[in-house]
């Protein structure tokens, strides 16, 4: 029997049992949707994260009181006991490290602020950031209007602010230019000098809903209300320089913060790339978990397929007898039923992949990131479905192939 005949025969069978076929396809597709959607979303998030971080974070370090990723309450309590990094310490560090040619930006943030302008006000969810002129180029922040903070703003501690797009929309009509207008955060008045370009997306939302003021103003005006700690963003020229800056930073900070020899650092210094890696690992784990759930759904679908095929073999006993009488071998019957199972699984997989991609597209659209087709997941899905088809089709197919032709022909 020619190979193509098995496929034609499979489609004849599907046509003869449309409802059964569709139900089987749906059960397979559901498993695959879960796998592809989870995989696609995780892959997209990971890529967005990587581009985000590499865009602004190549050869960069972050120095903070605590690590960026905290995985347990116990850790959190330990890091919270550390002394905050004061603006004075951070400034001293900046002065000393800049000699080595690194770019440094200091920043501190206060979440959940309400921003007012005249009678308008935002929800209490705006992040107030105190930072410096280096903040903008180092983060790759673009302006839609006005100017960023400049050195004089910091040096003279001017009461100026750059606002994010969401803040601007909340406070000002679309046709007015907010530059030059005044906003108020907790009794402090600031003159708007610039508006950030809209970023959107999960990583951009923080940028859109943010007000940036000079860090000395932040520290002077708000330091007493929050137990603030200054974070330091450092960018080196290349990998070798990064390693040099890394080591030097540790020395400088230990001396500034009076860490005695033999004692542990009381600050965290991390490469941005390694933070990205950790987040990536986490996302992959999330993706794998989704895939695992999809896998379980697939196994359930596989059991369903086996059940349906067993019924089908019983119903088609006579057909099998006829086929054997006119020249079918044990092998050709086996292959025929296996091909049916595999083709069914793969069509289900294709449907699931299309649906899963639509889901992933929807998710990534909501998250405002670009979807890339998770080829690896797609290939894995098709492979997995083939396995499911072979695995769960094998027993019914063997049963069909081993039927005694005489009994099969007599079967009522």
């Amino acid at each position, binding site marked *: 029997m020619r190979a193509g005949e098995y496929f034609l025969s499979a489609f004849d069978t599907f046509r003869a049992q449309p409802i059964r076929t569709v139900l089987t396809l749906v059960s397979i597709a559901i498993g695959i949707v879960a796998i592809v959607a989870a995989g696609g979303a995780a892959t997209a998030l990971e890529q967005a994260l990587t581009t985000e971080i590499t865009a602004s974070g190549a050869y960069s370090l972050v120095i903070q009181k605590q690590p960026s990723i905290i995985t347990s309450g116990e850790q959190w309590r330990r890091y919270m006991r550390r002394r905050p990094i004061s603006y004075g310490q951070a400034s001293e560090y900046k002065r000393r490290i800049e000699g080595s040619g690194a770019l440094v930006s200091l920043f501190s943030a206060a979440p959940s602020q309400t921003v007012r302008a005249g009678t308008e006000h935002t929800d209490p969810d705006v992040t107030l950031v105190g930072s410096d002129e280096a903040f903008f180029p180092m983060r790759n922040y673009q302006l839609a209007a006005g100017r960023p903070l400049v050195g004089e703003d910091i040096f003279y501690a001017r009461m100026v602010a750059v606002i994010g797009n969401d803040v601007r929309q909340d406070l000002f009509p679309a046709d007015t230019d907010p530059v030059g207008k005044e906003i108020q955060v907790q009794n402090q008045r600031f003159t708007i000098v610039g508006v950030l370009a809209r970023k959107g997306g999960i990583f951009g939302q923080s940028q859109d809903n943010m007000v940036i003021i000079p860090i000395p103003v932040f520290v002077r005006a708000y330091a007493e209300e929050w137990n603030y700690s200054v974070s330091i963003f450092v960018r080196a020229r290349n990998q070798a320089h990064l390693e040099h800056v890394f080591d030097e930073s540790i020395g400088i900070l230990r001396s500034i913060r009076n860490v005695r020899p033999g004692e542990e650092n009381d600050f965290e210094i991390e490469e941005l790339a390694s933070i990205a890696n950790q987040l990536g690992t986490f996302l992959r784990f999330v993706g794998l978990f989704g895939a695992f759930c999809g896998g379980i759904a697939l196994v359930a679908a596989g059991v369903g397929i086996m059940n349906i095929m067993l019924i089908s073999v019983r119903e088609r006993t006579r*057909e099998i007898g006829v086929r054997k009488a006119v020249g079918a071998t044990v092998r050709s019957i086996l292959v025929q039923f296996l091909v049916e199972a595999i083709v069914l699984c793969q069509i289900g997989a294709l449907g699931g992949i299309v649906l899963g991609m639509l889901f992933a597209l929807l998710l990534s659209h909501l998250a405002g990131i670009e979807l890339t087709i998770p080829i690896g997941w797609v290939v894995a899905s098709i492979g997995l479905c083939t396995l499911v088809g072979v695995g769960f089709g094998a027993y019914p197919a063997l049963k069909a192939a081993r039927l005694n032709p*005489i009994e099969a*022909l007599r079967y009522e």
Partner: protein
Amino acid sequence: MSTPPLIVLEGITKHYRMGSEIVEALRGVDLTIRRGEYVAIMGPSGSGKSTLMNIIGCLDTPTSGRYMLEGTDVSSLGDAALAAIRNRKIGFVFQTFNLLPRATALKNVELPLIYAGAPPQERRQRAIAALESVGLGDRLRHKPPELSGGQRQRVAIARALVTGPSIILADEPTGNLDSKTGMEIMALFHRIWQEGNTIVLVTHEEDIARHAHRIIRIRDGRVESDMPNPTPIVGAPLLV
């Protein structure tokens, strides 16, 4: 140069195990059938006719004895070889037709050619020719449920003929048909025999058996008598 007989059975037995009991369906059958013969096998129910046919048709293997088909011993062949013999050398016609109910007449007749590995174009042509030769050239697209009993049996006969087998085996081919339709089918068998085919036919009915040129009677798994029929009836002309 003499070609070996088409079929030589020597001491064929077939035992079935039914729980602790052993049913001896065939108890030593010796039989020779030559090319071009038209043989009827008769006997009471349960005498072993179908069992014998299934062994001749390589659907079943004997418990003991030797079966030579066209000079080759097939008693010990494996599944693939037996399947190939069924495909190329045997044409089965059953009492219950045994057509694929969802496939058209054409597809049903093409089935053996699919297993023979014939290319689609050739397959179609040969199947159409076979259906035309049994008078069903205008029923190619009909499915079995849309055909009468006689027409279904003719599709089955076309399917048996389509690979050009060495022998046609028909187990009570008229058993499910009324007598008029039965006679039409017998006329068709007569013509097929005239065209040079070898036919072995199982039947209960003397009227049917008298179409054959040799009548073998079986009782309790043994050949009771094996006699030529000097006055075979020629079936009513086929009404196409």
